[in-house]
């Protein structure tokens, strides 16, 4: 489905805020923990009390550089800056962030479908506290007011800013999804959109297809689930197109995604935020990672999801996207090694995708490899293989012994043909319908016959062989 009407192109860049999973906050030793009672993880530093000073959490910097390297960024000497504006969720009425000298720049992220999205920068900054709206409760003449909790103030964030390379809502979703997988793979954040530890803002504009201009963009905030990313971007792009079609034009602004009404709404007024008066944070010193620091970080990075997908796709000769499910479940190492040990790649993928959703349990790789061999050598039917597999996962053991204990020996095809013919003879009306049906209906009726065969053979029949015989008889 196309996001925008023919003749238009959607342009999108994303800003993703990712809370780092450090033990303590960015500038003080208060706990970095979601869900605690309000204002219990606070101290003079993160409350911005007069006289307090920030001291940088080295682990947060390490995490940020890790994330930068995982996004193929250059890690630079960097400087913290103050972004000045008044808001009650900011204890000092400025936010410490990085401005003209961010830690990570010029990276990229490859989407599973292959497209490369540029990463402009990934910089370190502090989170704000949380305000919640209250009031209208009659306690003070129905006046409205807000309450502020500073537990989140000072939690370390990395803001990852993409280039405006995204061309569809689907790509935007894939970008965030992939970014989330990377963050989880390197363990720097729990990346939970529902808890706000991963937050996405989208810069959206449109242009006539084929044009190279960049038109006015709007920043959409408050997108709080993976699925609303697509809807918010699609809505906003079409809002712009509607304006252009009506002879108007959007004006640059921040808008908010309204989940309830499935639309974006004009947000904060620009008066306050026009002029942030950035300047270098005098209470913090520059960061100058050495080449050795960067080499150490590179060495500490695990194989990332894209490389893992590629690796599995290569040995299994499937697409990277197909390999994605197994990689996402973290089962790719097992699959990769099983295939490396000689197991049939197609069977390995099918079993892991369909029959091993909950993990490998007590089964070792070697046992799995031998089981797959028994199946491909037709010593076990598919159904039998599945049963043995389940037992190996539940209780371990060797596939040969489990199969033997269950009395599994693949049925000879002549025996199977006899059983099939007997069933056809016993169900002449259904058989006639089966023969007369088109392929789609035939499939439904086939299920009835296959069930009778399995019942007659107590599940020992190989489903594939049964189907072949039926199709031969039908033809």
């Amino acid at each position, binding site marked *: 489905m196309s996001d925008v009407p023919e003749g238009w192109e959607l342009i999108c860049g994303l800003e993703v805020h990712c809370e780092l999973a*450090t*033990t*303590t906050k960015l500038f*003080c*030793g*208060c*706990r970095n923990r979601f869900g605690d*009672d*309000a*204002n*219990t*993880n*606070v*101290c*003079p530093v993160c*409350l911005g009390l007069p006289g307090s000073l920030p*001291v*940088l*959490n*080295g*682990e*947060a*910097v390490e995490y940020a550089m890790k994330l930068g390297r995982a996004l193929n960024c250059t890690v630079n000497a960097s*400087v913290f800056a103050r972004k000045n504006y*008044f*808001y*009650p969720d900011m204890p000092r009425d400025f936010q410490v962030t990085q401005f003209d000298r961010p830690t990570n720049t010029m990276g990229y992220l490859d989407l599973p479908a292959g497209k490369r999205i540029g990463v402009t920068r990934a910089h370190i900054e502090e989170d704000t506290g949380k*305000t*919640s*709206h*209250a*009031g209208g409760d009659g306690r003070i003449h129905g*006046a*409205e*007011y*807000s*309450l*502020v*909790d*500073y537990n989140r103030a000072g939690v370390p964030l990395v803001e990852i800013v993409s280039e405006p390379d995204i061309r569809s809502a689907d790509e935007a979703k894939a970008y965030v999804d992939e970014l989330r997988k990377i963050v989880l793979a390197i363990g720097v954040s729990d990346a939970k959109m529902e808890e706000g530890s991963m937050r996405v803002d989208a810069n959206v504009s449109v242009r006539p297809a084929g044009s190279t201009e960049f038109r006015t963009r709007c920043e959409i*905030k*408050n997108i709080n689930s993976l699925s609303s990313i697509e809807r918010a971007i699609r809505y906003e792009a079409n809002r712009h197109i509607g304006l252009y079609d009506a002879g108007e034009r959007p004006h640059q602004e921040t808008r*908010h995604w309204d989940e309830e009404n499935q639309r974006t709404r004009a*947000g*904060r*007024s620009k*008066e306050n935020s026009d*002029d942030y*008066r950035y300047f*270098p944070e*005098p209470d*913090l*010193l*520059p*960061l*100058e*990672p050495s080449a050795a620091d960067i080499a150490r970080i590179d060495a500490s990075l695990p194989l990332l999801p894209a490389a893992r997908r590629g690796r599995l796709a290569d040995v299994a000769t499937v697409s990277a996207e197909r390999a994605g499910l197994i990689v996402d479940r973290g089962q790719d190492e097992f699959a990769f090694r099983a295939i490396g040990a000689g197991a049939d790649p197609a069977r390995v993928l099918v079993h892991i995708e369909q029959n091993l959703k909950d993990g490998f349990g007590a089964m070792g790789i070697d046992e799995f490899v031998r089981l797959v061999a028994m199946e491909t050598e037709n010593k076990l039917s598919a159904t039998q293989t599945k049963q043995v597999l389940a037992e190996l996962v539940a209780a371990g053991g060797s596939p040969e012994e489990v199969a033997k204990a269950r009395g599994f020996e693949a049925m000879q095809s002549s025996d199977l043909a006899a059983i099939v013919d007997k069933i056809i003879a016993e169900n002449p009306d259904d058989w006639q319908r089966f023969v007369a049906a088109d392929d789609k209906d035939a499939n439904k009726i086939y299920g009835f016959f296959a069930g009778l065969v399995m019942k007659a053979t107590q599940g020992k029949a190989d489903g594939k062989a049964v189907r072949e015989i039926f199709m031969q008889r039908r033809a």
Partner: protein
Amino acid sequence: MVMSQRLTRDDVAHVARLARLRLSEAELDEFTPQLADVLAHAEDIERLDVGDVAPTAHPLPLRNVFRDDVVRPSIDRDEVLAAAPAAQDGQFRVPQILGEEQ
């Protein structure tokens, strides 16, 4: 034209708004020439050509100062909130926030 001559009453009013200060008409009249005087004095450096000189943000050449990611005690919430002009339900209370999302 030097910068200081550009400092108008409107500039001062704008800057006051940015800084969350309210100035009376009389204060605007008083502050505008005072600030312009200071900026006029700064014309001596405005005229300097220092394009090839790096800025100094810190007087000391310290770099990479970190602390360990170790928990230190937070402070007692009652003590924190006792200092607040208004508090409720363990939180700081402020009047309604206009023009912004919560």
